[in-house]
C-alpha cells in the first residue's frame, strides 16, 4: 500500500506481540455502526494520479492575458521563493509547540511579524490569519472587544467579497453593521460623520479601495478617535512600496490579503491574512504571536507568547477560535519581501503604477471609453466606464484570450458598464497595446 511502511509480515508480528488480531483492534466499534467498506475507486499508482491531474489541470484556461484583480493579483514569483519554502523542514513541521526544535519556524514568524510592521508602519503584528477577509472580520471583532460597543461602520468601497463575509459572521451576534455609500469612488466623509456616534466601535475602510482609488484617511482616524472608535484599514501590501501607510494615517488595526507577496493565485487559496495593531491592543489581538526571549545560558531564542488570549488556554473565553496561522504562507511572504528588499519593493510598486498609468492612458484613447472616477488617483487598478455593458466586452475579449477585468455590476447594482482593470508588472506594454486594440474592436 502506498505510504504505509509495515509489511504484512511485520503487521502480523506486531499483532502477535500485543496478543491481538486486527479485528479485535476494531471490536470497540459496535457492529451496527460498522461500515461495509467504502464505495470509492481502487487506488492508483503515482503515475496514474499525476496523469489524471495533468489532464484536469489542462482543462483550466491559464494562458489568458490577465487584467483581472479585485484584490487578488497575478504578480511575478521569483524562483528562490518556492525553492526556499519547499524545504521540508518547514513544510512538514507543525505549530512550534517545542521551541528548541522549532527555532526555524519561530524565528521566521518573528521576522514576518517585523516585516509586516515595517511595511504598514504599525507596532505589532500577529503570526497571520487565514486570508484578508477573515482577517478583516477578526479586526472588527477585536474592535468590538476593545471598545465594548456594538456598532460598526463599513464603507462600501471595502471589498464586497469581504463585506459579505463580515455580514455572514456577525449576523447572529447582535452587532449593528452599517454600510455607508461612497461618493465618487471614495468614502463619503459627510455620510461617515452622520453615521458615527459614541456607540460606534470602528470605521472600516480600504486603501486602495475596491475601485482601485487611493485615499488618505488621517481625517477619518481623527473622526473615529473623537468618538472613541477605532479605524480599521484593509490594504494591498504591494502598494505599500509607494503608497502612504495605514500606520502613518493613524489606523488602529491594519489587515490585508498577503497573496500578492509571492503566493500563487491557486484558485482562491491558500492565502494569507495579515494583521497589525498598536502596542496597547496587543493582548486583544487574535491568533498566534511569536516573541523573542533567551534560554538559561542567555542565548536568544523565540517562543509562542501571550498565549493567555488563545483557545487552548482560554477555551470559550478566547479572543478567537483560530488555532494555527497560515504558517507556510507567512514564510512565503517573508521570503518574498526579503528577496525584493527595501529598493526592490519600491521599484516593483512603481512599475505596477506606471504600467497601470500607461494602460489607463491607452484605453482612454478609445472613443466612448472614460474613467469612472476621473478625479481620483489610482495605484494599479482602475474603473473604466464603457459605452456598453462590461459583461459583453468581457465575453468578447475572453474569446480572444484576454481576461479584461471584473464587471462591477456583480456587486454594485447600476454599474453595468463599469469594468475594473488591474495591471501588474507581468503585463508588458505590447500586451497592453493588444488589449486596448481588442477592446476597441469589441465595442
Amino acid at each position, binding site marked *: 500500500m502506498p505510504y504505509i511502511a509495515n509489511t504484512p509480515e511485520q503487521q502480523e508480528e506486531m499483532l502477535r506481540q500485543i496478543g491481538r488480531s486486527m479485528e479485535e483492534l*476494531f471490536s470497540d466499534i459496535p457492529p451496527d455502526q460498522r461500515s461495509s467498506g467504502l464505495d470509492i475507486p481502487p*487506488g492508483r499508482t503515482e503515475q496514474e494520479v499525476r496523469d489524471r491531474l495533468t489532464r484536469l489541470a489542462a482543462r*483550466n484556461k491559464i494562458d489568458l492575458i490577465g487584467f483581472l484583480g479585485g484584490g487578488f493579483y497575478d504578480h511575478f514569483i521569483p524562483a528562490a521563493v518556492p525553492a526556499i519554502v519547499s524545504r521540508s523542514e518547514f513544510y512538514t513541521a507543525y505549530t512550534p509547540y517545542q521551541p528548541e526544535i522549532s527555532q526555524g519556524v519561530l524565528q521566521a514568524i518573528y521576522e514576518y511579524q517585523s516585516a509586516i510592521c515595517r511595511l504598514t508602519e504599525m507596532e505589532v503584528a500577529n503570526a497571520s490569519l*487565514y486570508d484578508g477577509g477573515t482577517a478583516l472580520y477578526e479586526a472588527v471583532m477585536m474592535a468590538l472587544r476593545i471598545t465594548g460597543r456594538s456598532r460598526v461602520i463599513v464603507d462600501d468601497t471595502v471589498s464586497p467579497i469581504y463585506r459579505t463575509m463580515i455580514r455572514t459572521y456577525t449576523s447572529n451576534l447582535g452587532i449593528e453593521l452599517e454600510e455607508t455609500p461612497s461618493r465618487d469612488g471614495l468614502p463619503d466623509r459627510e455620510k461617515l460623520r452622520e453615521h458615527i456616534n459614541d456607540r460606534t466601535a470602528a470605521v472600516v475602510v480600504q486603501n486602495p479601495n475596491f475601485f482601485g482609488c487611493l485615499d488618505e484617511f488621517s481625517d477619518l482616524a481623527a473622526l473615529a478617535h473623537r468618538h472613541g472608535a477605532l479605524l480599521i484599514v484593509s490594504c494591498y501590501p504591494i502598494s505599500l512600496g509607494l503608497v502612504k501607510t495605514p500606520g502613518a494615517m493613524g489606523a488602529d488595526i491594519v489587515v490585508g490579503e498577503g497573496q500578492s507577496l509571492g503566493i500563487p493565485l491557486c484558485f482562491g487559496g491558500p492565502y494569507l491574512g495579515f494583521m497589525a495593531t498598536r502596542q496597547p491592543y496587543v493582548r486583544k489581538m487574535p491568533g498566534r504571536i511569536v516573541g523573542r526571549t533567551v534560554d538559561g545560558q542567555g542565548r536568544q531564542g523565540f517562543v509562542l507568547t501571550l498565549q493567555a488570549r488563545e483557545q487552548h488556554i482560554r477555551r470559550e473565553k478566547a479572543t478567537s477560535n483560530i488555532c494555527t496561522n497560515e504558517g507556510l504562507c507567512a514564510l512565503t511572504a517573508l521570503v518574498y519581501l526579503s528577496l525584493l*528588499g527595501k529598493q526592490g519593493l519600491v521599484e516593483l510598486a512603481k512599475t505596477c503604477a506606471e504600467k497601470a498609468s500607461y494602460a489607463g492612458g491607452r484605453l482612454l484613447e478609445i472613443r466612448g471609453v472614460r474613467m469612472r472616477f476621473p478625479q481620483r488617483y489610482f495605484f494599479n487598478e482602475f474603473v473604466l466606464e464603457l459605452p456598453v455593458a462590461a459583461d459583453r466586452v468581457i465575453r468578447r475579449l475572453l474569446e480572444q484570450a484576454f481576461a479584461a477585468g471584473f464587471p462591477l455590476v456583480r456587486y454594485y447594482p447600476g454599474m453595468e458598464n463599469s469594468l475594473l482593470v488591474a495591471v501588474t508588472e507581468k503585463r508588458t506594454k505590447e500586451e497592453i497595446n493588444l488589449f486596448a486594440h481588442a477592446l476597441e474592436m469589441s465595442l
Partner: protein
Amino acid sequence: MKVIFEKSVPGRRGVRPVRQEGCPPPGIQPRLLRDRPAELPQLSELDVVRHFTELSRRNFGVDNGFYPLGSCTMKYNPKMTEQVAGYAGFSSLHPLLPQLPRGEMLGQGALAVLYEMDLALREICGMAAFTLQPLAGAHGELTGAMIIAAYHKDRANRKTTILIPDSAHGTNPASAAIAGYQVQVIPSDANGHMDVEALRAALNDRVAGLMLTNPNTLGLFDPHVKQISDLVHGVDGLMYYDGANLNPMLGYCRPGDMGFDIVHVNLHKTFATPHGGGGPGAGPVGVCEKLVKYLPISLVGERPDGSYFLDYDRPHSIGYIAPFYGNFGILLRAYAYILALGREGLLRVAQNATLNANYVMEKLKPYYDLPFGRICKHECVFSARRQAEHGVGALDIAKALIDRGFHPPTVYFPLTVPEAMMIEPTETESKETLDAFIAAMIEIAELAETEPQKITRCPTTTVVGRLDETRAARHPDLSSLQ
C-alpha cells in the same frame, strides 16, 4: 542567530523587478504617498537563501524523524501531492475567473476537483453534502456552529447552549462561543468517555447541539455515541462531529452512521496535506440532508451535459465564510492522496494507525501509567505521574526525547489526565521506528528513577535550551523595528 534585518547591507540587492521603458510616471498626488521606504532587508539572493536554509536546519519536520504529536496526525506528506499542487494549470488560476460571464467553462478542471472531492468526502463520512470552503479545522467548527444556529432560527427554536465534553480540543468551546452560544461542559466518566448521566441531566430545550470527537482525545472510541446522539436529537439538538481524529475510522465507521448531523474533516490530518509549520490547512464541513440548504455560498454542481457550475442561488445559506472555494491548493493535495490510496488504501490507513498506536501502548504500559487501558484507536495517552514523583514531568520527558532524535508527543493535553503524554504514531511509521522510540521511552523511564537530573536538564543537543517563556510574556519583544 541574527534576525534577517540585522544582516542587511545598505545598497545590496536581491531579486530585481522588471522595468518598462516608456511608461509615464503615475503622477500620484504626494499626500497619498509614503514618505520613506519600508526598512526591508537589503541582501543578495544568496544571503537570503543561506539565511532560510540555516533556519530550516533549526526546525524539525516529519521528513526529519518520528513526530508522534498526539491529535495532530503527523503522517508522511507524499511528494507527489506537492508536485501536483504546483501544476500551473491549478496554481495560476485566478479565483474570480468563474465569476466572469461564461467564466465557469475556463476552470472546469478545478471545478471537477472540487466536485469529486465533495463526493469522496460524502462517501467517507456518510454525509449528504460538503462545503469545501472552511480554511482550517477551527474554521470548519465555526461554520458548523453557524449552521446549527441557522437550523434553529428556521425552526424558531430558542436555543442558547452547546454542550462540549471536558476532554475536547480548545477550539470547540471557542468556536461555539464565537458563533454566539453559551458553552456547557460535560464531564467524562471513569472510563474516559462522556458521562451519559451528566449529559442526560444537562439536556433541555435550550440545548442547540453537542460537539464531540470520536474517538475522543484519549484515543478511545465512545461506545455510547448512538445513545448520546438519540438523547441530543430528543431535544431537537444537532450532533457535531469534530473530525480531528477521523484517521482510524476510515472505512470502518462513518460519522453519519453514528448519528452525526454535521462533520468537519481536517484534511491536513486525515488526508496527508502538510501542516506547513502551522497552516495552511483545510476543514471541509459535511452535513446531513436536512442541513444541506444552510451550507455556505457557493457549491459546485454538475449539469446534465457533464460540465460543472457554481451555485450561488442558495437563499437559506448561512452566507459567505471564505472569499472563494476554500484552500484549493490543500483540497487538491488531499484529492490526489485519496485517488492514490483508493478504498483499500484508506482502510489500511485506519488499520495501521490503530495497530501502531496499540503496539506503542502495550510496549510502554509497564513503564508509564496508562489511565485507560482499553484498546485505543489512533493514539494512546499515558500519564507521567510515576516519573513526576522523582521530579520528572511530562515536559522533561518531552525534552529528553528531543535529545534522542524524536519529536515529543503532545504533553499536558487532554486536560483530564495529569502529566498527559498523548502519542499518535500514524500509519506511515514502521515497526523499526516505533521500536526505537519505545526503547528511548523505556530508557527515559529508567533514568527518571535512577538519575532524574539527566532528564531534567534536557535538551542539551539543540541550538537553544529551554527558553524563558515568562520573560517573553512579561516583556513582549514581538518585532524587530528600525
